[in-house]
């Protein structure tokens, strides 16, 4: 008989008023006992709706049964048969819209805590398991992967297992892409990211940092150098701005810049680490996605007294994961929904002093299906702020499309691919992740990387 508790086994967390002053991980993870107890909530149903909600098709009930039986290494093997980065996915996947969103237990009560168990299994493996010797038979073919983020790592991991020689080219000095520069330490510890990438490197994947494809070398040159296929997973590395007056004042950052300074360059350790990050006392973050929550919570941890989320729609439309919104609120972030910034004002030294905001009301749904905001005339007011962080999304980085003849892209910059084969308009070139879809999630990028690896294999094996 299954455990019919309506609630997930609670996961311990740092107290909000303690954690909003440190960069340690917020959620502390399940113990063995908690994981085994939560596993008994799974009904092991026949049609496995949870698996259909997973972009990489992890056999979820199978791994949960292993957890229930206390066979954690067995559970790890089941998960990693389909997902190379479980410690990361267990932490940052929007489970409520994926596996857990489809769980029948969620109809009445909370769904099974799949993400929490995935995280437990991956952490258990890292702490306890000995690395297994893997023997891979090489097939003598070379594939290049552009970008060492979730899409690229996944694609490389899949291809290396199939016998290809795989080189991943990374523009920054550190692998991981958005896992390294974007998602903060308190949500995704960086040594854990490094370990998961190491696992893929141990399989034989060669990661070359400091190579900017499009500048240091072009895709055509890679093909001339014997790479029979190229997978482009270069991400969405071009920040959008609001295009309102005052955006170039001092104290205005893109979320990318702010988070990169803190995460990749360890600005929170300044001056021990020499890259500075400046955060004032009153910080406004524009936008309400996961990146906005990351920026706001980071600003709070860096000592800002008041941190606002300024968003032109209402809470219902906010694209962030529920857990992120919830954590941000707990940590004292102030939400200003239905507030749209129209100008940023500066003091006599050029530093941000105020943000002019117009209040909004919701009208009919727009093309995104969300109710569109309209300004309320005469509702303008000034909010005192000394730092502004723009977190309204990113576009695909233009370097590759500008330097790769024959590669077709959307008007907004996304690389065009055949959704079935992940092929681009250029022979031998595949693409996936944010560079195709625009900014999305880690797991969707991983799914695309995996699909591309299968397509590349099929093509190169001449099937």
């Amino acid at each position, binding site marked *: 008989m299954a455990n019919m508790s309506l609630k997930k086994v609670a996961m311990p967390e740092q107290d909000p008023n303690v954690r909003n002053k440190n960069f340690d991980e917020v959620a502390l993870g399940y113990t063995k006992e908690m994981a085994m107890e939560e596993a008994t909530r799974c009904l092991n149903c026949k049609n496995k709706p949870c698996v259909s909600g997973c972009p990489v098709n992890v056999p979820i009930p199978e791994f949960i049964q292993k957890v229930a039986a206390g066979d954690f290494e067995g559970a790890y093997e089941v998960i990693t048969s389909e997902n190379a980065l479980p410690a990361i996915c267990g932490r940052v996947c929007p489970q409520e819209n994926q596996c857990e969103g489809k769980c029948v237990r969620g109809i009445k009560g909370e769904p099974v805590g799949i993400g929490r168990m995935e995280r437990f299994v991956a952490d258990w493996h890292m702490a306890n398991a000995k690395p297994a010797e893997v023997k891979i038979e090489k097939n003598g073919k070379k594939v290049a992967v552009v970008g060492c983020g979730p899409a690229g790592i996944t694609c490389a991991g899949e291809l290396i297992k199939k016998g290809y020689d795989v080189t991943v080219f990374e523009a920054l000095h550190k692998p991981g892409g958005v896992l390294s*520069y974007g998602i903060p330490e308190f949500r995704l510890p960086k040594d854990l990211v490094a370990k998961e990438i190491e696992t893929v490197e141990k399989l034989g994947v060669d990661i070359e*940092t400091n190579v900017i494809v499009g500048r240091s*070398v072009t895709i055509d040159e890679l093909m001339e150098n014997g790479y029979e296929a190229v997978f482009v997973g270069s991400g969405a590395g071009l920040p959008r701005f609001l295009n309102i007056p005052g955006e170039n004042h001092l104290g205005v950052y893109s979320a990318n810049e702010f988070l990169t300074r803190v995460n990749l360059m360890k600005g929170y350790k300044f001056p021990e680490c020499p*890259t500075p990050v400046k955060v004032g006392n009153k910080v406004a973050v524009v936008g309400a996605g996961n990146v906005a929550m990351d920026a706001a919570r980071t600003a709070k941890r860096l000592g800002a007294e008041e941190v606002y989320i300024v968003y032109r729609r209402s809470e219902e439309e906010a694209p962030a994961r529920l857990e992120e919104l919830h954590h941000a609120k707990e940590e004292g972030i102030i939400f200003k929904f239905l507030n749209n910034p129209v100008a940023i004002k500066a003091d006599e030294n050029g530093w941000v002093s105020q943000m002019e905001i117009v209040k909004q009301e919701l009208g009919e749904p727009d093309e995104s299906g969300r109710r569109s905001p309209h300004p309320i005339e005469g509702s303008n007011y000034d909010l005192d702020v000394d730092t502004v962080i723009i977190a309204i999304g990113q576009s695909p980085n233009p370097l590759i499309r500008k330097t790769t003849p024959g590669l077709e892209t959307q008007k907004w910059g996304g690389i065009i691919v055949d959704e079935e084969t992940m092929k681009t308009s250029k022979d031998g070139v595949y693409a996936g992740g944010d560079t195709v879809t625009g900014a999305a999630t880690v797991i969707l990028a991983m799914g695309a990387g995996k699909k591309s690896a299968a397509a590349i294999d099929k093509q190169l094996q001449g099937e």
Partner: protein
Amino acid sequence: MVYKIVKKTKLNSLVEMMEIHAPYVARKCEPGQFIIIRVDEDGERVPLTIADYDREKETVTIIYQIFGYSTELLSKKEEGDYVQDFVGPLGQPSPLHKCDRVIGVAGGVGAAPLYPQLRKLSRMGVPVDVIIGGKSAEFVILKELFEEFCDNVYIATDDGSLGTKGFVTNVLEERINSGTKYDEVIAIGPLIMMKNVVKITKEYNIPTTVSLNPIMIDGTGMCGGCRVTVGGETKFACVDGPDFDGFKVDFDECMQRQGMFREEEHQCKIGRGM
């Protein structure tokens, strides 16, 4: 990946030159482009312009002024040592084209990126002149190298210890007034110098290219920290530049943005005992 310092030369008490083994950059770089260097683990990413390159030896030459924490750290490295990271080439190559005569204007270490640009123009058959400026004779760099291909090398120093006493802009105005016809001016140096050059060239309507080196992190368009207003539009110096039409650049905004972390620059040196 580590990058070996093949050669190090002291150009004066504050300015040094390093030739660094960096195959990817050396194979592809063109005049006007830059690199980002990180001296050690946890180091800052520092953008520096490319002064020269050798495709066969696969080396790239950088010239830097010891200014803040990271350049001081770099200067502690010697021939045979390695730097942690060296990535590029970044930015667009300079838009060099054939014309009747070009004059380059360099202030301080601005002479470094100007050198490969003028040399390339000269190789394209364009007659070139140059004005090099510095605080004093000691801080006028690369004079002999420019003399190899420039028709005229003019010097301006603040204290008059070499060439004309005064600013490069004084010499530039004098050259223009003397009747020499210049089709284009390429000015690289401190923002205030480039701003003042443009003030003059605008008056005489001589197209002027300037090179910007604002604060940035990744150099690939990702952070947006290097945004500059050019002709009323926001551009990213790392991917749209670093060269821009000097007539259109909002220099005052550039100067303001350059100072965003001035206090921290100071704090960093104190915090790290320098």
